[in-house]
């Protein structure tokens, strides 16, 4: 089982996939989310979101602006106002 990760902007659902780990630029510091993370909610600052599709590979980076992240039993959801 991997982490279910969703990246959503007001315009569209950008990503909805299973990944290994995601690092999120939270307002009070970056945090990484793996599967089975405790329920958590944080606003995010403008920065780089790193998506690790597997444990060894290089991360894929997505620049995001404005929004917040929510972790629940279903996985991680990042709502961003802008990407790229």
């Amino acid at each position, binding site marked *: 089982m991997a982490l279910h990760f*969703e990246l*959503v*902007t*007001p*315009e*569209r*659902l950008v990503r909805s996939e299973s990944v290994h780990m995601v690092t999120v630029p*939270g*307002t*009070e510091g970056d945090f990484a989310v793996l599967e089975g993370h*405790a*329920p*958590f*909610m*944080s*606003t995010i600052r403008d920065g780089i979101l790193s998506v690790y599709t597997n444990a060894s590979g290089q991360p894929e980076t997505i620049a995001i602006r*404005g*929004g*917040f992240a*929510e972790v*629940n*039993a279903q996985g991680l*959801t990042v*709502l961003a*106002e*802008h990407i790229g």
Partner: protein
Amino acid sequence: MASLKALKIRIGSVKSTQKITKAMKMVAAAKLRRAQDAAQNGRPYAERLERVMASLATRAGGPGASPLLAGTGKDQVHLLVVATSERGLAGAFNSNIVRAARRKAEELSAQGKTVRFYIAGKKGRVLKRFFPTAILADRDMSAMKVASFDDAKAIADDLIARFTAGEFDVAHLFFSKFQSALAQVPTGIQIIPVPLAEQAALKDVAPAAAAVTEYEPDEESILADLLPRNIAVQIFRALLENAASEQGSRMTAMDNATRNAGDMIKRLSIQYNRARQAAITTELVEIISGAEAL
């Protein structure tokens, strides 16, 4: 009876009108599909945001909450944000929205409230005729081809700034909800302060396991961050729904126009053929009677 030539010109002119309405219908149909997709794509964000807002608002929405949620404590000045399109020839689309806003305005004035208007879209400017002194702002949307979140955010920021400055107590948003190409429903919703009843209903649907959720920073700060965003999202959705409704409405209107033009051409052709036949008959009678006289 009109002369043959006049009839022919008339038929020609109706035919070219029909060509235009037909083209407009096709363009509207193509744009409608795109607008519908855009509205669909915007749904996940709005749904997730609403769910989070609902669980946060019930936890952090106590006294001392942001005025965007709790209101200013007054209920005197109402702002009606009227979102219309930039172009006409879309059936009753614009007038329906304007009518819904006017009805609400009259209802509020009857209760002794002060009503102000915030116009977004050129076709809402007819309101100036009815309420010349109540227009708070008239936003030019002509540069906007496709509704983007930035446009919605700009409106939301403007509204929030005016709200904070105390220019109004309650804001309603008027737009047309898209149901199908044939049905668009003019709708008015309250956007400021964020209505709580709706959220309470939402909470029943999604009783999030919020009790164990950790917040960073605290709930209040997240809520304060999300409230303006929620308003922008509401406006963005309204703009998207409006875009889809406009195209749907235009498609229907232009389809009707094309059909009417077809009927008219049919009628005029019959008239033209009759007149032509009558002219031939008269000519024949003249020749025959001329020959008989010899």
